[in-house]
């Protein structure tokens, strides 16, 4: 006991370090955060950060408006062109509407239900982003009160972001696709028969392989979720950056640039 009294500070430091080590291990074993007061802490932090997030977003948008006037004018021109192209697409899709009706009737007859069917969409704002400089974990201002649950899928206007890793009343923690240790099954948008598996790679992007080593996937191909696993079918993941065939493993590997700019996310939608 005397020894402990004489070495009070080292003993306290070692004890705290030991407790933290145990916390890390339990948290890892349980597959995520479990801290007893985490819900209350998250809620309090979310409430405190929300006004700051809104204010900083407003200031950032205003500053961009001032310093990027020329860029915004160009973007406006580009968007006008896109609107014009989309109008043409709408016209051609109207023709396909009848085809879709026929398919829906067929799916009813066969009692077929797609993975995304019946999913509702709720939207929220990003209140805070991960403080570390390479992980992409962020908090949004909606949670269980809107029906969000763990592993709900998160998307934005561009495509797939990731999944909800933890949630509570008024907050949800989202883990981006590139940080998730899990894998995503994909198919090539151009030819849905070409399928494969993707996961985050060591450069902070996505890489994976095709199921078929002779699959005719090319650079620039758009990849979407295949519907196998937790991700519903048809959500855009990214574009193929490079394709390499490995003779030894007889696998065709692909690296993919995610369609979502993870650093610039401000608003998201959650499929529930």
């Amino acid at each position, binding site marked *: 006991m005397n020894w402990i009294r004489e070495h009070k500070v080292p003993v306290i430091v070692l004890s705290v370090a030991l407790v*933290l080590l145990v916390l890390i291990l339990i948290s890892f074993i349980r597959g995520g*955060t479990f801290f007893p007061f985490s819900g209350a802490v998250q809620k309090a932090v979310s409430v405190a950060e929300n006004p*700051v997030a809104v204010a900083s977003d407003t200031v*950032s948008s205003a500053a961009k408006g001032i310093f990027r006037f020329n860029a915004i004018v160009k973007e406006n021109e580009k968007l006008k062109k896109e609107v014009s192209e989309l109008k043409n697409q709408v016209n051609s899709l109207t023709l396909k509407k009848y085809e879709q009706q026929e398919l829906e009737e067929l799916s009813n007859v066969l009692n077929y239900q797609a993975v995304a069917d019946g999913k509702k969409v709720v939207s929220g704002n990003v209140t805070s982003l*991960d403080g570390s*400089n*390479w992980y992409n974990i962020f908090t949004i201002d909606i949670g269980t009160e809107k029906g969000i649950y763990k592993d709900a899928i998160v998307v934005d206007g561009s495509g797939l972001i990731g999944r909800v890793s933890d949630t509570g009343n008024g907050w949800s*923690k989202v883990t981006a696709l590139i940080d998730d240790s899990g894998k995503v099954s994909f198919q090539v948008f151009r030819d849905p028969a070409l399928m494969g598996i993707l996961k985050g790679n*060591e450069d902070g992007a996505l890489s994976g392989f095709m199921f078929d080593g002779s699959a005719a996937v090319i650079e620039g191909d758009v990849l979407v979720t295949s519907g196998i696993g937790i991700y519903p079918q048809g959500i855009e993941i990214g574009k193929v950056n490079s394709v390499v065939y490995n003779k030894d493993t007889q696998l065709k590997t692909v690296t993919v640039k995610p369609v979502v700019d993870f650093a610039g996310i401000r608003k998201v939608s959650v499929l529930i």
Partner: protein
Amino acid sequence: MKYRYAIIAFVLAFIIQGTLLNTIGIFHTTPNLILCLALSLAFLYEDEYGGVILGVIFGLFTDICYAQYVGIASLGYLLLCIGATLIKEILNKENIASILIVTAVGTFLYNVYYWAVMHLFGSSYGILFVLKQQPVAIAYNLAVVFIIYRVLIKRVVKYHYDRYYK
């Protein structure tokens, strides 16, 4: 330093870290304000453990709010602050170069430690990806610690420009 001021500083740093800083990040890199505050307090103040205690507590909050696993940042700040407390015995804290060296080394070690633990738990990021970000991350933290030092040194050591103490 009075604890209430330190707590206010940590709360502000924590809120700004997750919100405002992300809008002004360069190359997707931002300064680590909690690390800078904890390290500065641990290095500059004698016989006080405010930096260590608040570093551990706010590290825990960071883990709860942003990290995949609880305790990693908290343990990192604890080890870093204890290291700073030990090394201040052999460095002259009145010389700004001392705290800047401690910050640069501390930032690098913390980020490598964080990567190593996450890698152990299955993260796919490579060490090169992390190392590439270090120059900007260290430069950012040095700038923040420089400001903290200028504010705190007058309180820690009175007449610190005077070499002849009575």
